[in-house]
């Protein structure tokens, strides 16, 4: 295991205290950044690291930062997306509750890189206890002069606020997050303009995931090249994965990019629960296409390999399912989630998820009608790529991939087929 982001996790949360954090190598990157780097140089260093956003889309972070215009009439903002609501994902939670200062240090440096004087952590409402940890840490950082006016005598000012969400998955989508942060209803915004140009309160804004920002101090301390070398050529560095499901040791694990998926399951997680056979795995949170056992053997944990087996790394929530799992039921559960969380803005997602779920419900009662599997597939098709934001796609992809790979689990739910199956059994 490579410990970059998790190298203070063994302190079991003691690093929440600023002194402990400093004793363990904390707040070394910030003075270095402020003294030795110009803002653009930090962005350059991040570009060298080939760090890609850990929030789901995997957008190159350095490039995102460079979209922010240098001159702006309105203030620039940095927003940390800590809304972590993707089913199967809990990495940001541990990053914040075991090592909040790592994130804060990363945000100050990122703020400096963007010449932004204000940043926000938008944290999932259910993480209220972590919000308290963060607020304490922020207060300590202010007390030590890492936040506030003229940080460490550099002339750079930065304020950081922690803002809780109110329990909507859609508020993890960056533009809906900005709406919510502004005090409005959490609906995504029309893009373009992208937040980097017109974001929070109309000002240029960078939204980054917790993990993305937490990496920044390490890049400053050890260099972009060093970080990149930890992973593969195109997917640099390490990444946290939250493993859940039928494994012996579920939890958060940091592994280098390019690490085989099966090794993660078999080594870090101690293998399958009860020694049962692997049936399926969702490698990046509920929104990404599901894999069957065969795909899992092939996949390594990096963006390119994920694409090659037709899925995505997403949020890094690895959901492992053994042979006892009914993929129809897991997909129904996932669809219920998206139906519940659709914000209602656009037609395909609002009406499509409702309809999808209705079909799932009747199939769940073994009352599926002939053609229902095809209907599910086609409805998902009519959502995919037509919705206003990516939530619609996230609702459609799991359904399509599950039908493609585990069609028999679906067919079993069609009334007509049940009769046939029973006949065959008699």
């Amino acid at each position, binding site marked *: 295991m490579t410990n970059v982001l998790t190298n203070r996790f063994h302190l079991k949360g003691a690093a929440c205290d600023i002194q402990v954090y400093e004793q363990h190598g904390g707040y070394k990157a910030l003075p270095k950044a402020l003294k030795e780097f110009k803002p653009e140089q930090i962005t350059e260093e991040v570009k060298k690291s080939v760090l890609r956003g850990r929030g789901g889309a995997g957008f190159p972070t350095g490039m995102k930062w460079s979209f922010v215009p240098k001159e702006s009439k*309105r203030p620039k903002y940095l927003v940390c997306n800590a809304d972590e609501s993707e089913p199967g994902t809990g990495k940001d939670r541990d990053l914040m509750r075991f090592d909040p200062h790592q994130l804060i240090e990363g945000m100050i440096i990122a703020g400096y890189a963007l010449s932004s004087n204000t940043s926000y952590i938008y944290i999932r409402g259910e993480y209220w206890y972590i919000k308290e940890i963060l607020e304490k840490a922020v207060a300590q950082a202010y007390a030590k002069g890492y936040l506030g006016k003229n940080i460490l005598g550099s002339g750079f000012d930065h304020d950081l606020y922690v803002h809780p969400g109110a329990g909507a998955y859609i508020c993890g989508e960056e533009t809906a997050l900005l709406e919510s942060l502004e005090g409005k209803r959490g609906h995504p915004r029309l893009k373009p303009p992208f937040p980097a140009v017109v974001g929070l309160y*109309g000002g240029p804004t960078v939204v980054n995931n917790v993990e993305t920002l937490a990496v920044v101090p390490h890049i400053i301390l050890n260099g972009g090249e060093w970080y990149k070398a930890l992973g593969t050529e195109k997917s640099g560095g390490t990444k946290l994965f939250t493993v859940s499901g039928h494994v012996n040791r579920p939890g958060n694990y940091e592994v280098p990019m390019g690490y085989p998926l099966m090794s993660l399951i078999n080594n870090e997680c101690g293998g399958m629960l009860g020694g049962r056979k692997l049936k399926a795995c969702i490698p990046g949170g509920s929104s990404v296409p599901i894999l069957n056992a065969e795909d899992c053997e092939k996949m390594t944990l990096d963006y390119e390999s994920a694409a090659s087996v037709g899925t995505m790394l997403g949020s890094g929530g690895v959901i492992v399912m053994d042979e006892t799992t009914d993929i129809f039921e897991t997909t129904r559960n996932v669809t219920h989630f998206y139906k519940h969380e*659709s914000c*209602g*803005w656009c037609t395909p997602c*609002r009406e499509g998820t409702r309809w999808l779920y*209705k079909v799932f*419900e009747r199939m769940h009662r073994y009352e599926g009608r002939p053609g229902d599997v095809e*209907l599910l597939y086609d409805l998902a098709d*009519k959502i995919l790529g037509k919705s206003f934001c990516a939530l619609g796609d996230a609702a459609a992809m799991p359904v399509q991939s599950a039908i493609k790979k585990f069609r028999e689990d679906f067919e079993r739910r069609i009334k007509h087929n049940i009769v046939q199956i029973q006949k065959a059994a008699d």
Partner: protein
Amino acid sequence: MRSNNAGCRFGVCQRKTDFMETVKLTINGQEVTAPKGELLIEACEMNGVYLPRFCHYRGLTPQASCRMCVVRVDNPKIPKLQTACTMPVTDGMAVTTDSQEIEDVRAAMIEFLLSNHPVDCPVCDRAGECELQDQTYGFGEDRTRSQYDDKDNYLERQISPFIYNDPQRCVTCKRCTRVCEEWMDENAITVLNRGASTVISAFSGWVECSDCGNCVDVCPTGTLLHVPYKYVARPWDLKQTPTVCNFCSDGCSVLAGTRGENLIRNVARDGRGRTAGGINHDFLCSLGRYTVDFVHSKDRLDRPMIRRGEHLIPTTWDDALQHVAQRLGELKAQHGGDSVGVISAARLLNEDQFTLRKFADDVLQTKHAEYYHDDDEIDLASFFRYGAPTIATQAHLQNADTILLIGSDPNEENPLTAFSIRWAVRQKAARLITVNAMPSRLERQANISLRVREGSEGAFVQALLDDAKLNDAAAALGVKAEDLQAVRKAVAESGRVVVVFGDELRGAAVEALALLESALAAPSAEAADAAKKAYIDALQRQVKSSNSTQKPSINENPYTYIVEHPTLEVGAEPVRTETKFSFLPLVRYSNTMGAGLVGMHSDDKGGMSAHAMINAAGGGIKALFIAGEDVVSKANGEASRVSTQLAKLDFLVVQDMFLTETAKLADVVFPVTSYAEAQGTQVNNGMQIQFVRRAIPPVGQARPDWMVVNQLAKLMGVDFGYQGQLKTIFKQIADAVPGCAGLSHNLLVNEGATQISLPQPEQSKINRADVLERLAGQVAKINRNVAVDAAALTAKAGTRLKQRYPQITQHSEMLTPELPQGVEAAAPAPLVFPA
């Protein structure tokens, strides 16, 4: 489904290309042109390609939620389908709108929208003019895979005295909430819940708002319905006649929906996107829309009446006309022409006013003929003393750099003007400055709002005109001198300034408006542009202090977002005026301007005003002929005095729609037509002359006002030469009235609102010193010890407009609607949310 050259609904886009930069693009292989920056969906429509849509609505912020308008952009190549309602056209753009792929998406969206729709068209009022029906026919499949038995059902419910809501029919396009926010600044309705449970609702169950009904008009489906129109008629049974509203001086066009001989409803736009094509685009206010029922009130007079002792007895037209002709003839012979006075209501049409004036001049030979106006109405004589300053239309307002609102509350008195002001501020970053004693909702959008002492508004004009008197004016107004200075600076550096003023400006202050043009000279075009740019920048910078609770910041009220999307403007071409200042006098009645214009006033003949005539009753005045005005009810606490005066007359003739308090005192009462039955022309506060069409035949035996007078004249031996034709009257008007030359009914029917231009004031004729001195005298009289007290005035606000129209306050049930049985205002039917 639509005609090939549907073009812009407001009929101005074709003209738009004349003065705007255009770009070339390719739609389905065909090269076309479109105005630069235009939205693709509009550009397609201008070029004969109609794209289906629900959420797109010209002039509302883009929404991109229904996904009906998707197109494939081939150049520049974009991998995903794009929504045409959010794409500005660019030069060289190539789009495909008719491929199989796109047709599939449209059909899929329709299938989605219908998947939980009740499809209860047979009992839906919108059926027949429903955009969901139309789009389904045009772009959907004839089968659906959804099952009727597992739909989430909702109860229908009434959410306001005027609005009925059936949530299940909603396509969540949010036109309604956007209209309420962006047009009305009411924010009275909102979206509740999330995902498939999303519904449109009031915040507290019952909508508290100005009841404009615009949300209902723009709703593409039967989700929002007009309560008074519920289950009353089918759209295909209605004849839709474009005509003009009668209830304020703005003069909105309405589509009068009639069935047989009945006026059923007024709308600004029906579900087919048809509008009356007037100056109000798709806007109507509560009065214009909902006060239609008085037309068929059971109280309407249906026969002439004649006095027999204590009683007014129905009689025949011949009898009544004969009697009046005879008595007026006798009185004229006995006491001379000047013993008879003629009074008209300012809402009567030009043809009526003109005929009444002719009647006074040629038949009665009296110099006393005037439209009824109160002393506290805008003094138009002073305003026009030196000629006519540029009069502002709604288009001027919508394109102004700075709007100065002095007095009045347009929200209450001239709702369309209020809409245009909001529009200008929101869409064009116009600077709004309000100077008012009474609070107004428009202040929320004001850049500077001065709450002044009641009756001191004249001092504001003085402050603008005379720098030296600024401190004194500030004291009189009860405001800070530096605030006045800021206003003066803003006005000085603006390019186009529209001054909107109400009754509060009096005498010399109104006259002095003519001096503004020379006192605050126009900056050069570059300087004006620079000032406007600086202002927009300043707006944007305000974001920084957005926590300030003092003023709505740009961000909370995101005007500047809209400035960044200039394609949102309604397609009105910028109005270029010769002068820097233009003026919008908020006169009280729909045809106050016209009445004056066609000469229905005594000024130049040395006759008496309407009030003076009433006061002289029994003295110099022996008989009165009152057309359409209830002078008793209007007498502001002096009703009994006016009644006593009228009782002193030898002879009183009243023609009206109702047996008003005044009519009750008359010797003869003629029943006349309402605005729905009348035809002719009227002039709004923007000096725009408009054609009013007859929508229904006269109710009962009612006759148009002009016709009654014309018949009387004939009986009294004078032929006006009308040959029974309305057109001929207008021809005579056009010949007689300056500014109307060359106009005709035929022209006005096709042209819509046409501005009458009058000669500008001759600056050389104005005695500046004299005007300023009189103004100073007026300001000196202001009692500076009176507190600037909004609270006391608030009580007075808000009812003024309705008070002006006894016919609707007394004979329309819609303004005081009785709730249907079982509906209680406080507790509307609960919403049922499926799990």
